[in-house]
């Protein structure tokens, strides 16, 4: 049975003149061990969807189920042991220590004064070692970097021991290293049988981490499927309003200029990729057929072939200089 499922769910918010509906007729479900990414532009309703299925906002229409029960019929305490959240907002007080923050995850289970029992302490200890945050357990939150804080917030959600963890843009302000850490952690969480729902704009999370994608579009129904299908069908490009020629999903790179002087790049591996990248950045178009040719021999030697003339270079900077000179001559 699905952990969370929706039936003809409409989401949105109340405004003076009635309901502002962002998405309607959503029928989706998420199962144990699945990582699902919610993709869409700003303002399409990702956060509203997250808040609706976690019970923070009322739905406009339709139902959200946890297992076979409607979430509005569950008590807040029961819901808190079913779904945990990592939102984009920072905690209100950053003077908590890491261990105190993680301990707050035990709120639904601890005694009436919030005193931790042995079981609670065991869970906190396990979560802290699982997420690898032992080294900062005694630090205050204001001492942490954004990346560390995100991991700690995930640890807090884990301490809540829920079947479903929902994260709103978990990698939004993170550098690549921290992003990879978070992705690795989410993968580990899913492999333990929890369902992970992520809202994101991040192409790498969509394509490399998720089992399925839910694409939210303005004024059209939700599209779902596995990431590769959706990439091949061009659905992701459509959802994120990306131009197919500009954005290269395979490499995650952006081609900002088009229609420059055509250049052929030859060679193998990494060097070719970065050479092409450098040429595109400078406004050349990398094609299959042209008089201008750049041959990559190894990461420290290039040949620039222009008609019959061949010149060798020892850095990409030189390559670009030569190409720019010859394109000025033309």
């Amino acid at each position, binding site marked *: 049975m699905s952990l969370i499922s929706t039936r003809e769910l409409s989401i949105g918010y109340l405004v003076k003149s009635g309901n502002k509906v962002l998405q309607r007729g959503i029928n989706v479900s998420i199962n144990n061990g699945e990582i699902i990414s919610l993709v869409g532009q700003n303002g399409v309703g990702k956060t509203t969807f997250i*808040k609706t299925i*976690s*019970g*923070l906002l009322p739905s406009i229409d339709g139902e959200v189920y946890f297992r076979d029960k409607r979430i509005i019929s569950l*008590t*807040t*305490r*029961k*819901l*808190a*042991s079913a*779904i*945990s*959240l990592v*939102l984009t*907002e*920072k*905690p*209100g*007080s*950053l*003077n*908590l220590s890491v*261990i*105190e*923050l993680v301990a*707050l*995850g035990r*709120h*639904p289970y*601890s005694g*009436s*004064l*919030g*005193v*931790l029992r042995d079981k609670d*302490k065991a869970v*906190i*200890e396990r979560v*802290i070692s699982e997420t690898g945050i*032992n080294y900062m*357990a*005694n630090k*205050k939150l*204001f001492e942490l970097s954004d990346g560390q804080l995100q991991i700690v917030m995930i640890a807090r959600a884990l301490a*809540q021991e829920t079947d479903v963890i929902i994260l709103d843009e978990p990698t939004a302000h993170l550098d690549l290293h921290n992003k990879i850490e978070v992705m690795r952690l989410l993968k580990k969480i899913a492999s333990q049988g929890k369902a992970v729902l992520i809202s994101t704009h991040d192409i790498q999370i969509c394509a490399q981490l998720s089992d399925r994608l839910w694409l939210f579009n303005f004024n059209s129904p939700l599209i779902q499927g596995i990431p590769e299908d959706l990439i091949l069908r061009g659905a992701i490009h459509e959802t994120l309003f990306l131009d197919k020629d500009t954005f290269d999903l395979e490499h995650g790179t952006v081609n900002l200029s088009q229609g420059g002087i055509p250049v052929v790049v030859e060679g193998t591996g990494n060097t070719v990729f970065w050479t092409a990248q450098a040429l595109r950045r400078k406004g050349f178009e990398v094609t299959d057929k042209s008089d201008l040719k750049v041959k990559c021999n190894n990461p420290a030697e290039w040949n620039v072939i222009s008609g019959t003339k061949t010149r060798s270079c020892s850095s990409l900077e030189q390559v670009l200089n030569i190409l720019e000179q010859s394109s000025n001559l033309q």
Partner: protein
Amino acid sequence: MINQYFEASVRKWRGLLLFLAAGLAGCFLLNLSFGSVDIPLKGISSYLFGKSTGSDSWDLILSNFRLPKALTATLVGGALGISGLQMQTLFKNSLAGPYVLGISSGAGLGVAVAIFLGFYFGGFLELSGIGRSWLLVVSAGIGALLVLLTIAFAANRVRDSVSLLIIGLMFGAASGAVISILQFFSQAENIQAYVIWSFGSLGSLSWIELSVFIPIILVGLIMAFLLSKPLNALLLGENYAISLGLNMKLTRHLIIINTSILAGTVTAFCGPIAFFGIALPHLTRMLFNTTNHLLLTPLIILFGGILMLLFDIIAQLPGSESTLPINAITALFGAPFVIFLLLRKKNLNYTFQS
């Protein structure tokens, strides 16, 4: 590792709380001893064990004046501090205090109306001291209660706490305006009676008044202990608190009621004692470096009692006949202390993100 951490922290906090409790007892004795007449500590301790100080006049001073005043001071400090703490956490705002919801303004309005109507009908000055003080207590209580009921009604209507904060501030402004109008139309004696009430006073409670005051404050403080867990969850922000299973509406109501009981009762009996409610939570958080409400609650009760007893000793001007208004002393000696701690800390990380 975790167990060691928790055991060490339990040991540390237990020691600190015992130390503060001893300090509170010491300040209590000092407070009884100092005043216009100095009573030796030896006499006080024998009096507290049911015997006499050795002098009938000392016995009389202790039982009629000093003991009621010291008991009041002990409870007032903690009560104001706790309600300030609750408001700061609920509104995630370091500038919030026990009076942000307009409770003291409501009480002030009640007192102002009572005084001015009393003069208008001519009966006020004829009332005996006891009758007059009860009149003030009851009218202040009614004023505070009316504000509380309105705020509780508003808490049902608005979703977020910040709107509630603004509504409370508007109440304060409106009550202040009405008080100004009343003052504009009244004679000097009325205004003086009102101003003296607004100075605040710890020493005006009789044993009969204390028999009402002490139980209400104790109930409020016990309730504050029971609210530690939801208040801790609120440290994360309302959305996280709800996702942790907190019933936000109920919690908000309970916090407002708790604060109003504490701040409203203190204001009704002792007048609007300013500064303490805002500053004490800051002082306690900075000095003891914790945000856990289960610890902050006893810390503030003990530390607030200590400070209020000390301030009262200063206000008595030991060795002299006159007494300064307690409101002046709390701010005069408290403000430099807070400023010193802030300069030393150099940042406000200990408090809330806006």
